[in-house]
């Protein structure tokens, strides 16, 4: 088991290195010259040269990449400015440290992701479960029809409609803003409610359909029939012989989806003007702010890769068949 875990972690390091290299190449080598971008309108060739020198752009590519990497772990110097570890460079737009931009915005994205996840798990799994048990009834048909519709609605449409109806017309909720929970719990809840719902709707519909089909498959399993033939109570049959096998695969998908969201919910954050990682990504792309683009790409990759490993390790705990193969 230990060897398996170490092997997986080794894989993680390799994947993240590869992602680093590719993003570095794409954003620093295939994009417009960063020195020209920083220099702005009143620019002289001498100034461009000195910026190149400070950023290390005159160095060979591998040296530049090495400086970038070692900056993350050990910090680095840009001319007279020291950027302490973890150093992801400075924004071309605001000259702010990219790392401090991330740490300031990450809590917002995490709040959005966790809230939405709780919502979609509750609604999706319970809805799918009820549908499976009441298979073929009017409840099942309308729930699944609704789920199909829900998956099809783009979340920016839903976001704008909700915002117009609840905030502008009915004035039930304030315009969302990233209020910390400690400042005003009620306002916090009201602010995040719409982003949570908007983000959760698509996932909830998907999870409801998934849960339903998994549970229906499980109810057709021979071991489910065995459990009934054993005379077990309905609750025990449901819990052990229907839910556990049906929901285990859902943890895999949930791990991926949730990890993906930690890297920022781009559309939802942008539409609601929430200053999270997703909005930061959108802004930086619009302004070609390369250090920031690169940092958010790395961050998203980091969450997805780590999410994958966590899911795999969790799976060995959840499914005994996987556990034995891995040991």
């Amino acid at each position: 088991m230990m060897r398996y875990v170490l092997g997986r972690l080794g894989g993680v390091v390799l994947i993240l290195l590869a992602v680093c290299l590719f993003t570095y190449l794409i954003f620093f080598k295939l994009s417009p010259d960063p020195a020209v971008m920083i220099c702005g309108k009143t620019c002289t060739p001498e100034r461009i040269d000195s910026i190149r020198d400070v950023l290390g752009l005159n160095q060979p590519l591998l040296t530049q990449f090495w400086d970038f990497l070692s900056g993350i772990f050990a910090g680095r110097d840009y001319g007279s400015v020291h950027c302490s570890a973890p150093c992801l460079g400075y924004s071309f737009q605001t000259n702010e440290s990219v790392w401090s931009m991330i740490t300031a915005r990450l809590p917002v994205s995490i709040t959005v992701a966790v809230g939405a996840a709780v919502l979609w798990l509750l609604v999706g799994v319970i809805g799918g479960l009820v549908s499976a048990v009441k298979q073929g009834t009017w409840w099942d048909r309308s729930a699944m029809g609704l789920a199909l519709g829900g998956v099809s609605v783009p979340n920016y449409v839903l976001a704008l409609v909700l915002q117009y109806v609840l905030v502008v017309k009915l004035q039930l909720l304030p315009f969302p803003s990233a209020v910390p929970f400690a400042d005003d719990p009620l306002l916090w809840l009201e602010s995040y409610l719409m982003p949570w719902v908007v983000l959760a709707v698509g996932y909830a519909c998907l999870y409801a359909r998934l849960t339903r089909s998994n549970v229906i498959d499980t109810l057709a399993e021979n071991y489910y029939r065995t459990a009934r033939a054993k005379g077990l109570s309905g609750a025990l049959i449901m819990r052990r012989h229907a839910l556990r096998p049906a929901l285990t695969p859902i943890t895999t998908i949930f791990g991926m989806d949730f990890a993906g969201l930690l890297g920022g919910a781009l559309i939802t954050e942008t539409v609601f003007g929430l200053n999270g990682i997703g909005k930061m990504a959108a802004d930086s792309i619009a302004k070609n702010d390369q250090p920031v683009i690169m940092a958010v790409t790395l961050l998203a990759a980091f969450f997805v890769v780590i999410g994958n490993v966590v899911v795999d390790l969790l799976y060995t705990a959840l499914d005994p068949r996987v556990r034995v193969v891995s040991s």
Partner: protein
Amino acid sequence: MSDELFVVDNLTVTLPTSRGPVDVVKNVSFTVGRDETVGIVGESGSGKSMTALAVLGLLPRGARTSGSVRLDGAELLGRSDRDLKSVRGNAISMVFQDPLSSLNPYYTVGLQIEEMYRTHRGGTRRAARRVAIEALERVHIPDAARRVDHYPHQFSGGMRQRVMIAMALCCSPSLLIADEPTTALDVTVQAQILELLSELQSTTGTGMMFITHDLAVISSIAQRVLVMQSGDPVEYGTAEQVFSDPRHEYTRMLLDAVPRIDDEVAL
């Protein structure tokens, strides 16, 4: 009052299909005495398994039944699901065809035996665990105290079927329904399982309803035989009678279909 343990009288099972209701079991009658094994033989689709499922009230949704099924004189047909729970696994238990898919892969075999024992007999987990180990020992699983914590996929096919049998017998039922218990197994393992079932039956006195399509298997284990063809009972009698002097054309056909070692084969 007869000495019969289990009586099936004029059982008819009707399933709804897209082309209207279909009788998959028609007027089937047979009895199982204490300590007796009755074989039910037929091709797939002959209604053997439906007969078994009807006994425990485990038919697919929408199925209808008529006739009478009595265990120790008590009527089982038409009882509520809740009511039948105390019968299932307790007075009548069942062993299925494919032991791998019939055991839940997520739980140890011990837990799957314990949950059944505790449902019907109550008691602590520790007591149930002791019962599970004893049950595994009774079906000759070596090192039962350790194997009780293993998962189904860690057992071989034959051993899994032994686990199923151990589970089926842990509450000392008066009737065991074995639905093709040897079909998914190797021939040598088949023989071991049949031997085990006979041995357990002689020590526990459990009546057995043994369902199979394999006449060779039936001839070695059953005292009485019911032959079924597309839901109809075509022949019913003692094993000796049915095998030595089959009255019905279909039974003769089934018997002829069994390959024999002294058959001449055209090459």
